[in-house]
């Protein structure tokens, strides 16, 4: 057992929570606790993952209801104290709704629900969540699965995000070129993932937990979890 303890938030409608736990607990042997949305005490946890799914049925807007769940108040405190939080897919949508990350995720440009493996350029390799990518270069292959994953922010917010190096992942081609053709959903700036100004909170539409086992075709997502564990040892 590593001494880094993960918490995976489970909302009614979360459907990637066990996938995340499989990676942290079963693949990486890290202490992992599933946290039900009514729980309010997460003080025992080091790193929080808000997984993908359709929390509360995505009623009103994706993530809109989840932001007021009891556990999210604790997650916001956890984040504001500088501790790591990762939101994947629906988790990213929740982090924007609750205000921990800027912007919003809106309906894909071409209306389709997109479920495919895409290439990502890792723009920040110095964060808690991305340090596992080290000084490596080149694109990583990670799947996306969303109907509402088009990153949007107003011009000022977007400019600030770019100025502060808040973009963590961009959609690119297999050679790492960030181009309009490599943009699956119309996200501004090809943005697939961002972080807050202090870098401890990361949100991303792609699913690293679905690319953490060779049986699933790619292990490129594993470093999101293994890098943090290795750094602590």
């Amino acid at each position, binding site marked *: 057992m590593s001494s880094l303890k993960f918490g995976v938030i489970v909302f009614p409608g979360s459907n990637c929570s066990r996938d995340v736990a499989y990676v942290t607990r079963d693949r990486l042997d890290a202490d992992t606790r599933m946290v039900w949305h009514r729980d309010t005490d997460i003080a025992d946890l080091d790193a929080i993952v808000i997984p993908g799914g359709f929390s509360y049925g995505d009623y*009103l*807007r994706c993530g*809109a209801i989840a932001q*007021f769940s009891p556990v999210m108040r604790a997650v916001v405190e956890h984040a504001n104290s500088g501790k790591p939080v990762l939101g994947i897919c629906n988790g990213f949508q929740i982090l*924007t*709704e609750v205000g921990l990350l*800027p*912007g*919003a995720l*809106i*309906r*894909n*440009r*071409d*209306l389709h629900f997109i479920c495919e493996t895409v290439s990502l350029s890792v723009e920040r390799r110095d964060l808690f969540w991305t340090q596992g990518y080290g000084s490596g270069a080149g694109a990583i292959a990670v799947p996306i699965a969303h109907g509402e994953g*088009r990153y*949007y*922010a*107003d011009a000022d*917010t977007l400019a600030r995000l770019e100025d502060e190096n808040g973009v963590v992942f961009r959609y690119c081609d297999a050679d790492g070129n960030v181009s309009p053709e490599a943009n699956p959903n*119309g996200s501004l700036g090809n943005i697939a993932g961002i972080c807050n100004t202090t870098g401890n909170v990361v949100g991303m539409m792609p699913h690293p937990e679905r690319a953490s086992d060779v049986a699933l075709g790619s292990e490129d997502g594993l470093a999101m979890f293994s890098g943090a564990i290795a750094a602590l040892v």
Partner: protein
Amino acid sequence: MTQTYQAQVYVTLRPSVLDPAGTAAQSGLAQLGFEGVDRLRIGKYIELTVEAADEAAASEQLDAMCDRLLANTTIENYRFELTAIDPAGAAS
């Protein structure tokens, strides 16, 4: 003594936000032969009743509801109309 108000809330995408569903619906209308249709945008309509001391207080509550939950002001605008009703539901 409080008054019950019927609120009708309209949540619309901000003009700068692309509305692919609206674009698709607009092309559907064109397919059906409706000519001259443009700028179709899809939003949400929400209705609720609320009790408040007066219309100003009700309006303040609705603003807070919209800002905090009913609309995401990063991507949406909202407006609402308030009508005083008797508790049984009919306009007073």
